[in-house]
């Protein structure tokens, strides 16, 4: 503020609080001497300031001072239990847990659940679940994968049984010994080769195409 004609505005409160430079203070004083509006503004601000500063201090209720800080540690409890917390946060969380009964109780509850979960025994899979690789169809990359709507175990068992039965029948016709491992070749490739008639003789049996297509569908 360099001219008397400019109103001090926000500078007025700063001047009242003694938070202006000497040059600014001189400008405000000079302006107030000539500007009735700013002098009245100064009186209002000064009165409000005085009223605010005259407000009494309040005694805190005893319970508030005994209570822990309002911000609880929440899910940091689990992170701390799992050793997944930033090291710089650790002292604060530990201090809170030491001071806050609610969070300390929550810590104990969650720790119990964590321990119980981790103590659950591992389960042995039923033997048929882990099939040898040869038993799995290997769909070509270009073919979209279809998700089974019924439990896959029953589908595969049924498919394998159908293929095995069919292979016994076909091979029995030509007097060849049947394969000891009915899961090889892969179900998908076997079905692809034998489920429908083809223009030429069958690759395994050497038979001419059947009059009717053989279907393995259920």
């Amino acid at each position, binding site marked *: 503020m360099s001219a008397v004609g400019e109103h001090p505005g926000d500078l007025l409160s700063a001047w009242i609080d003694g938070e202006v430079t000497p040059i600014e203070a001189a400008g405000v004083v000079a302006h107030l001497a000539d500007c009735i509006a700013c002098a009245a503004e100064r009186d209002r601000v000064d009165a409000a300031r005085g009223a605010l500063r005259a407000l009494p201090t309040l005694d805190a209720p005893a319970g508030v001072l005994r209570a822990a800080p309002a911000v609880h540690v*929440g*899910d*940091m*409890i*689990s*992170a701390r239990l*799992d050793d*997944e917390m930033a090291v710089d946060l650790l002292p604060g969380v530990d201090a809170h847990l030491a001071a806050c009964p609610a969070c300390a109780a*929550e810590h*104990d*509850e*969650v720790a*119990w*659940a*964590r321990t*119980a*979960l*981790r103590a*659950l*025994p*591992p*389960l*042995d*899979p*039923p033997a048929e*679940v*882990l*099939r*040898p*690789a040869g038993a*799995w169809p*290997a*769909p070509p990359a270009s073919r979209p*994968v279809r*998700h*089974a709507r019924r*439990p*896959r*175990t029953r589908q*595969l068992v049924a498919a394998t049984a159908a293929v095995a039965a069919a292979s016994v029948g076909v091979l029995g016709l030509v007097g060849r010994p049947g394969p000891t491992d009915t899961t090889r070749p892969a179900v998908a490739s076997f079905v692809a080769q034998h489920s429908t008639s083809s223009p030429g003789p069958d690759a395994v049996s050497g038979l001419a195409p059947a009059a009717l297509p053989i279907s393995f569908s259920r």
Partner: protein
Amino acid sequence: MPTWEEVAQSHGRFLYTVAYRLTGKDDDARDLVQEVLLRLHRGLATYRPGSLEGWLSRITTNVFLDGVRRRQRRPTDLLPDEADRAERVLPASKAAEETFQDATLSHDIQRALDGLPDEFRVAVVLCDVAGLPYQEIATSLGVPVGTVRSRIHRGRSLLRETLAGRES
């Protein structure tokens, strides 16, 4: 790089355990494991050395969540009476039942797990059963680490609430 057979043999127990903890039913766990093994069979070549269990857990989780989403789209896929019948006719596997026979707490914990919302159950199982770190769970689920932390904590808290009264 491990072969399919090696993975199935060395991690079959891990896979089935995670699958059972996620689904709560032997039949569903079998389907889940076999779907995972199918995907594994097709995608083993894409595996890059790292945490194999993390990779398997990620596949298992994705298959499980795919199933959850399918069920949500087809709410009548399994009617209540069918569900009851499935429970009667297709009990938990012998191995699972034997394990649980003298472990009422394990059984109760599994039931409590089943009652958790899917997103909480997945986070808790991946953390406490599969033993994955938060970051890996976050990557598997495609959510921030903070979300994983929150889901694990809320899942455990809900579990404890469900099992209130148990010995601490």
